[in-house]
């Protein structure tokens, strides 16, 4: 398979995701909605009591907003996109029609990953732009983030949501069930992972959590426990942990796609 075909297959997978209105709308709501609400609430608070509440923008609010986008709601949007990318062909019943073209099943699986990432990144960049607009528009006399922090924040947002998106593609391809994959990932992301991270008795075992490895790369303080950083990892360890998550879930998804009855 050459690069042209790979690019066309990825383009086709992007088209499928782009036209899946329900998933797209919910992902947009999850990615942009909380930031919008955050700034609206902060602006109203500031307007009603400027002495107690500072301006809605500035570096501190940027940090809080970044956590909202990258660690709380952005990943939920990413997992919806990833699950749709992983199960779209199977749930529509067209996987077999793609298999009978003679194209390798691994190639069919492979094109899902960049497509899901592309849609996810566009959405996250949109949310991030909204965050920057609020940060600068409502900064008043507060300091604003540096270019370096802005770029690092963008990279962190894409990393944190992209990781979950890729894991979602792998898990969804493994289960071939949209509801099962969504429930499992939301339960992991919202309940299990923060719970495990906050159990001090687990010690270094917690280094294996994706959320902890991701938090290592945050350019802003993300707090301790739960979604925050409960353990301190080296850069190398964090990288290996993230790589392991990606490799394991992609391998599982690829294996299932290659061996399942179509």
């Amino acid at each position: 398979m050459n690069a042209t075909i790979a690019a066309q297959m990825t383009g086709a997978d992007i088209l499928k995701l782009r036209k899946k209105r329900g998933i797209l709308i919910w992902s947009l709501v999850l990615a942009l909605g909380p930031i919008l609400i955050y700034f609206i609430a902060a602006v109203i608070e500031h307007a009603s009591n400027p002495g107690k509440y500072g301006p809605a923008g500035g570096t501190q609010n940027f940090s809080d907003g970044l956590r909202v986008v990258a660690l709380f709601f952005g990943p939920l949007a990413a997992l919806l996109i990833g699950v749709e990318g992983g199960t779209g062909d199977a749930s529509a019943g067209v996987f077999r029609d793609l298999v009978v073209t003679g194209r390798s099943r691994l190639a069919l699986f492979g094109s899902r990953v960049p497509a899901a990432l592309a849609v996810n990144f566009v959405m996250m960049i949109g949310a991030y732009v909204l965050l920057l607009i609020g940060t600068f528009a409502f900064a008043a006399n507060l300091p604003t983030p540096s270019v370096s922090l802005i770029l690092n924040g963008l990279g962190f947002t894409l990393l944190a949501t992209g990781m979950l998106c890729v894991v979602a593609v792998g898990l969804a391809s493994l289960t071939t069930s949209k509801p099962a994959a969504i429930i499992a990932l939301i339960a992991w992301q919202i309940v299990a992972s923060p719970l495990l991270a906050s159990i001090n008795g687990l010690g270094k075992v917690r280094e294996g959590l994706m959320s902890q490895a991701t938090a290592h790369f945050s350019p802003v303080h993300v707090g301790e426990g739960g979604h925050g950083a409960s353990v301190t990892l080296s850069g190398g360890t964090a990288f290996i942990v993230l790589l392991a998550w990606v490799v394991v879930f992609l391998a599982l998804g690829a294996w299932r796609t290659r061996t399942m009855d179509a």
Partner: protein
Amino acid sequence: MTSSVDAAGTAIQTAGLTKRFGKRAAIDSVDLQVPRGSAFGFLGPNGAGKTTMIRMLLGLTQASSGSMSVLGHPVPSERAAALARVGAIVEEPRFHPQLTGRENLRVVAAVRGPETHERIGPALQRVGLSDRADEKVKKYSLGMRQRLGVARCLLADPLLLILDEPTNGLDPGGIQEFREMVHAMVEQEGRTVFISSHLLDEVEKICDHAAIVDRGKIITQGAIAELAEGSTQHELIVGADDLDRALLVLDGCPQAKQARRSEGNLQVVLSVGDDSSAPECAAAINSALVAAGLAVFRLEPVRQSLEQRFLEVTSRLSDTPAEEVTA
């Protein structure tokens, strides 16, 4: 009956092909030969193993044992080469409902290769969907989806089309169009069309070759005309002035195995040992009726249909009470 077609002249060839689900053999040691350039009917009752066979040929599920080749390429070892010029609809055609007909074809064209995109327009035109191609598929009727499925097959510029129950959901006009399209593909374009169906009449009208499959086994295969002629049952339509008396006469006639009323005449199953004795039997029956003083104004052999052959060779005959078969 087995066609003697050499390997180079076959679009599909299987040898000892078997698919087991646990202890049950869905396909049991099947030797199938589909001649190139033919419209081939894969005929069998529901649950006979037709779709399982197609799924194995297309690499959708693995065979338990045996070998198969498609367009001269062994499957699954050269699956990609084998399927490059194959178009297929397995069970009902499925699409992404959120995409338009044209977009659905673009998805498949992207997987098949860059040259395929040029075939989208002509394929849509061929199946008469050009005007509706930019509507979402979720608004399509089943018949339109069937036609879009055929258009998707045409993207491969196929040497072989494999169609699973292709007339399901088509109205009479659509079925007629489909027949004409298959005839054109085979006779004018030299493609091979492999159609699985439980509809005997359809296969007889569309196909020139067929295999009859039952409980995972090929019972017989060959040219349609040969298959129908292979029937061991010979029947005669008898017209007489007094059918009640004629039935009494035939009851005592050793050449008449069975007789019943049928559309103002009698339909008589002959007791014949072989094909050559059928005319003598008919003459003996005529003599017996005339000797009994009856006026016989019609003696006509019943043309053997594929349906009769099918009922003879499949398990349906033995599963059905005798009175229902002869009614």
